């Protein structure tokens, strides 16, 4: 019985592959989730992107860390924000506390690393004057590895405040003493967790029952091909939530706020003339921040900086090194939602493959020329003098 | 209230439409058929694009075949389009076989389908089973059987027959008729065949919605109708 439970055990958080940078582009070095995960072996990088194993304790720090919103916590951000809203009493300040923090808190979360920028801004949206994070010293906490995450979120939220024309100090951290009694609700060994076990057991019995039913239709297990999946650009729930919150911040007036892009889930792109129009950046962008536009024989690449999470998939994927992430980003774009055209060039159709390409070099696309002639050229180069020395 | 009689008539009507289309794809228009169409045999019921297409075809026939001119031009055009190796290949395998093997895998599948549906190709059939004309005639065959089942009435038989119709439409005809008709429209010089192609598209598109709806209707309501 134990064994079955072990096998069937499923992690409490779900990874939405389509949004995961690692899933979409194997070259992506994104490790946001793994970096904050407090449990060893709970996040695993696999061929299919990221896998959350049964070791997960459902602290949801990874969900907060993932800029693309690929990891969906058991309770969604919106739901969390809703619960919070119920407790906000404007214009009074709002205190959010960690379970281990001693002191009066309006709202208690198991760990502050669960919070996102949008959630932090929620009380302000509801009219609260200030948001305070009641945080004890994280060192020694079992979830210590997740601690930097909430610090980062706090900084982001403050920066966003500034860009909204508010005082950054409307969101602050307040040191709080640690509670004497450890009250961490989350057990650290997942397989033994009752929640997980019950869930797994329920699933297991359901499956057994299904197998026993005579008329059950055979399960359609054929997974959708990757190449079909990446044609879709699903909504980033985290970002749409944030944009929603920012849009409705009372009294917000967007201010140009240029911050370094490194380490922030915001970025602005540039495309150099080396662009071959191959469309890989658009295809692989997890959040759909890039959109190709082709009309009247031109190729244009539109970019919505408000959606960009700075995951750098486009940058690492581009073979021609034509896409670059700018070093700084202006946060006010989140309020204005203006899309930029990164490149616009004449588009031609290749005579051989009927694919489009940029440039006016010939009737054939560079790629057809390359693959067709290279075999020839390389063989030729070897056999016609010159390179004979290369023969090993 | 719709009765079996009516449905029987519908099935017969569909069979006839299939028969006309099948004949137009299979052989050059015979004199009888020409005369019939020119006389206005194709009548729409309810204004729609299907009706317009039928009107176009009738008009095209009236224009193409004048009293003093025999069918020669249409014969030549039919031969050019559907018999000689032209840009229009009227075989499903040309469009759906990944290797464009006319007579290959797809043809074998269609033939299998006929066998499963207990349809025997006669020795008069001079085409591959996946020829547009033969596929349309196969649908005509099923519609005729459907008609008989309405008459009896036989709910189980009807259900099976409609399943075969639906299966064949979705697995075969509806997957390639547009590809063929687009080619015909692009390639032909005769208005008649342009109109035939348009009518085919319109009719089969109507079938795409109708057959599943009919199947669903019977599944849910047949019992009560029988009792009433």
């Amino acid at each position, binding site marked *: 019985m134990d064994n079955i439970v072990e096998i069937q055990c499923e992690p409490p958080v779900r990874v939405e592959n389509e949004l995961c940078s690692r899933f*979409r*582009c*194997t*070259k992506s070095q994104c490790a946001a989730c793994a970096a904050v995960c407090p449990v060893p072996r709970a996040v695993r990088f696999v*061929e299919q992107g990221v896998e959350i194993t049964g070791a997960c304790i459902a602290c949801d720090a990874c969900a907060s860390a993932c800029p693309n919103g690929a990891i969906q916590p058991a309770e969604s951000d919106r739901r969390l924000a809703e619960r919070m809203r119920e407790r906000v009493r404007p214009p009074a300040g709002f205190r959010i506390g960690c379970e281990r923090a001693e002191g009066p808190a309006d709202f208690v979360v198991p760990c502050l690393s669960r919070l996102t920028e949008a959630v932090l801004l929620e009380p302000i949206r509801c009219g609260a004057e200030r948001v305070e994070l009641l945080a004890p010293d994280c060192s020694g906490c079992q979830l210590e590895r997740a601690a930097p995450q909430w610090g980062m979120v706090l900084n982001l939220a403050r920066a966003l405040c500034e860009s909204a024309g508010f005082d950054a100090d409307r969101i602050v951290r307040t040191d709080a003493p640690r509670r004497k009694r450890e009250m961490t609700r989350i057990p650290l060994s997942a397989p033994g967790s009752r929640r997980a076990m019950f869930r797994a057991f329920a699933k297991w019995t359901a499956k057994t029952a299904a197998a026993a039913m005579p008329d059950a239709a055979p399960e359609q297990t054929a997974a959708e*091909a*990757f*190449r079909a999946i*990446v044609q879709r650009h699903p909504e980033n729930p985290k970002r749409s939530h944030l944009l929603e919150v920012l849009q409705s911040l009372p009294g917000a007036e967007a201010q140009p706020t240029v911050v370094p892009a490194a380490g922030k889930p915001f970025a602005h792109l540039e495309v150099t003339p080396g662009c071959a129009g*191959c*469309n*890989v950046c658009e*295809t*692989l962008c997890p959040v759909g921040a890039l959109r190709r536009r082709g009309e009247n024989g031109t190729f244009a690449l539109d970019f919505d900086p408000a959606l960009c999470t700075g995951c750098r998939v486009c940058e*690492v*994927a581009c*073979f021609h090194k034509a896409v670059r992430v700018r070093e700084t980003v202006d946060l006010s774009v989140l309020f204005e939602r203006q899309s930029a055209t990164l490149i616009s060039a004449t588009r031609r159709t290749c005579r*051989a*493959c*009927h*694919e489009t390409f940029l440039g006016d070099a010939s009737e054939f696309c560079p*790629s*057809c020329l*390359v*693959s*067709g*002639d*290279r*075999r*020839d*050229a*390389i*063989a*030729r180069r*070897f*056999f*016609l*003098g010159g*390179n004979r020395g*290369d*023969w*090993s | 209230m719709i009765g079996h009689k009516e449905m029987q008539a519908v099935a017969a009507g569909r069979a006839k439409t299939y028969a006309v289309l099948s004949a137009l794809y299979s052989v050059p228009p015979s004199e009888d058929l020409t005369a019939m169409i020119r006389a206005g045999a194709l009548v729409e019921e309810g204004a729609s694009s299907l009706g317009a297409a039928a009107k176009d075809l009738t008009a095209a026939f009236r224009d193409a075949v004048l009293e003093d001119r025999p069918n020669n031009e249409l014969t030549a055009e039919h031969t050019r389009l559907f018999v000689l190796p032209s840009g229009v290949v009227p075989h499903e395998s040309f469009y759906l076989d*990944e*290797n464009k093997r006319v007579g290959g895998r797809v043809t074998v599948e269609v033939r299998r389908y006929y066998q499963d549906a207990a349809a025997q190709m006669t020795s008069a059939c001079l085409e591959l089973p996946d020829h547009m004309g033969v596929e349309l005639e196969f649908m005509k065959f099923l519609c005729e059987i459907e008609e008989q089942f309405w008459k009896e009435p036989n709910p189980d038989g009807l259900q099976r027959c409609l399943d075969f119709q639906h299966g064949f439409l979705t697995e075969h005809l509806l997957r390639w008729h547009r590809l063929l008709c687009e080619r015909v429209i692009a390639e032909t010089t005769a208005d008649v065949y342009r109109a035939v192609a348009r009518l085919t598209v319109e009719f089969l598109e109507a079938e795409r919605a109708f057959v599943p709806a009919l199947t669903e209707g019977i599944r849910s309501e047949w019992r009560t109708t029988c009792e009433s």
Partner: protein
Amino acid sequence: MSEYSPVIPREAVDRSFAKQGPKQYTLWVDIEHCIGCNACTMACKAENNTPIGVDYNRVIEIEEGDFRDPRKAPNVGVTFVPMPCMHCGRPACQAACPVGAITKRKQDGIVLINKDKCIGCRYCAWACPYGAPQFNAEAKIMEKCTLCVHRVEKGQLPACVNTCPAKVRFFGELNEITVLMREKRARSFSISVAGADTKPSVQYTIPR
């Protein structure tokens, strides 16, 4: 009793198949006797059902020298070089693929493109110095020589090897082939490209 194979004995092929653990299957192409008939090209086409215009293997005809006066001994030569995928030890295509659709299999060293993953961006074609990956314009994906992996896994030889009328293509494990070549003292090489150290595995022998 059967198959005349002047270069590679069948036992060596059997040994290659039987070898356990990580290995590198590859081809040995004897250019000295290749007549450029393109039977391999067509065998590949038929076996892998490639569309017209997509060939996993091609025979390149290379002409050298200059001949203008028939009274003098002609200084001209033609070499035929069959060019399949080199199944490199460090495939440039794999490195270039943004979605990890290209893998080099540990168990036999065959470099394969996963058709489900490939998004048809053609980065592999840009990256491969040998022009091995081919764009299938109908399916909009890249394809290339698989060393007939579906046959090899069943213990059969790749189609091009089976069909070669002049018997100049041989299949085997790289080490087996290297040993045989050393025994025969054949002058062998692999087409390596300056600036792209991909460690191609396909071996060629050339006229002495």
